[in-house]
């Protein structure tokens, strides 16, 4: 196997909470408590677990939205966890994030083209608005939207369309690693399927690596190559998708799989 694109070694992210009462002791919550994994170029690794297991914190730490307590994360061989914000900024182009809530992740005051042009200008990928609009139009088409929508504001779009715009904002930079944090969880089933297909297609076509964070095992099976199951800040089991779903080793993985309500059909669905 080739060198990993991302190698995470012993990541810890702890939070301090205010103690209860006036003089209560501060408590430390170990949201991520020693997590290590690799992601190869072009690979999709899923982090799956229940709420509070720390899976989202892993993603937020990797994008410097949370501060890591200890550990190392190598991107193409260089540790980037300890970088200052300005040192990390050039890397942001390569490490992008798709957010869960399509209604909250777009600035309501900015037109779609303004939202999509921002990363282009910041990273110096284009100089003029004309250049930017060409790239925006191409990216909007890529995510299945009419390029004409770029002159509109977010409130004119449905949840599914907004999530496509969120994906466009990420893909327009042609990143090497995309972190998708519950990217389809807020969507209705029929829309979720469309967006999931889109993400899978974009991933295949561009060969981008992906860290797909989700609580939904069905979605995870659909999208990933490998799966890591998280529980209380640690990875309890990691392996190929087929192994995790067909022959789970850890008791917690089995419990998760056993909890999913299943539909028994009278006949195969066409």
């Amino acid at each position: 196997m080739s060198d990993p694109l991302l190698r995470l070694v012993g990541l810890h992210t702890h939070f301090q909470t205010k103690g209860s009462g006036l003089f209560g002791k501060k408590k430390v919550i170990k949201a991520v408590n020693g997590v290590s994994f690799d992601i190869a170029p072009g690979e999709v690794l899923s982090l799956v677990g229940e709420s509070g297991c720390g899976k989202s914190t892993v993603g937020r730490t990797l994008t410097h939205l949370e501060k890591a307590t200890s550990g190392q994360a190598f991107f193409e061989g260089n540790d980037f966890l300890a970088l200052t914000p300005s040192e990390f900024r050039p890397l942001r182009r390569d490490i992008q994030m798709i957010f869960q809530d399509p209604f909250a992740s777009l600035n309501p005051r900015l037109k779609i083209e303004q939202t999509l042009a921002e990363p282009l200008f910041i990273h110096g990928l284009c100089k003029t608005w004309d250049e930017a609009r060409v790239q925006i139009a191409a990216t909007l088409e890529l995510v299945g939207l009419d390029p004409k929508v770029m002159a509109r504001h977010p409130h004119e779009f449905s949840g599914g369309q907004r999530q496509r715009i969120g994906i466009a904002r990420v893909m327009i930079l042609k990143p090497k690693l995309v972190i998708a944090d519950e990217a389809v969880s807020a969507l209705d089933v029929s829309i979720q399927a469309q967006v999931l297909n889109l993400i899978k297609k974009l991933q295949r076509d561009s060969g981008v690596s992906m860290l797909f964070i989700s609580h939904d095992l069905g979605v995870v099976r659909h999208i990933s190559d490998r799966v890591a199951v998280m529980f209380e800040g640690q990875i309890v089991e990691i392996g190929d998708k087929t192994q995790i779903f067909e022959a789970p080793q850890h008791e917690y993985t089995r419990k998760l799989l056993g909890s999913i309500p299943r539909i028994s059909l009278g006949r195969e669905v066409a």
Partner: protein
Amino acid sequence: MNIINFLRNAFAGRKLATVGFIWLCFILLAAIFAPLIAPFDPLEIDPVGRLAEPGLPNLFGTDHFGRDTFSRAIYGARMTVIIGVGSVVVALVCGGLIGMLSAYFTRLGHFLMRGVDVLMAFPALLMALVLITLLERSVFNTILVIGIVYATTTARILYGMTLKLKGEVFVDAAVCSGAGHSSILFRHILPNLVSPLLVQASFIFAFAQLQAAALDFLGLGLPPEVPSWGNMLSEERIYVTRAPWLLIYPGLLIVLSVFSMNLVGDALRDSIDPRFKDDIAGV
């Protein structure tokens, strides 16, 4: 959302607020076109025609110098607008910057906001009095003092709203796009604060009037020769029994204007983003 639509929504079905808004428009017009509307020079003294009753040619009568009260009231509208707009600008710029920066840079915020808290511990009028006694009486200083007084409340309010916006996902998304501090503050956070700021401005405008009138009345506000409603009240108060109209007209103007501004402020507040409604509780 453009301004006209915003106003239309805000005033739909609110007759009193609409009347208030129209009244304020009249005041604004009077302020802009004061030299054209006022029949006399507001400073022209006429010892013969002292304390004339309302009628023609002196619509609101004349004061104890024989100056035309109607003309002084029209020019008073001009002072009202100047003081109001000036204090709003000072309060929003100073308070807004302090509040936004404090919320965004948490460490700086601990420091700045404690200072704001200390200032807020003084009653507004007392603080204005203390500040104004250190300065000369002038239009600029009055604006400065009133602006600083209301900058504290503005800072508090914007601090809270910026903290909320800072936690929004679209701010995280902008960070992930590589946006820097100034871009996040002024491109992503500030535009979302425009409508609450507008509401805040309308309340500060109203309270600045009261504050200015109070300072004038105490003889600490504008220089005595400047025609302002507060000065008119202050100068003519000893004639309340002989020439009550000298106090009734400026008094009514102050009351109506402040009342209108509060109505307009309420209407605006009810139509803005519900997230921020709790933050603006009047000044």
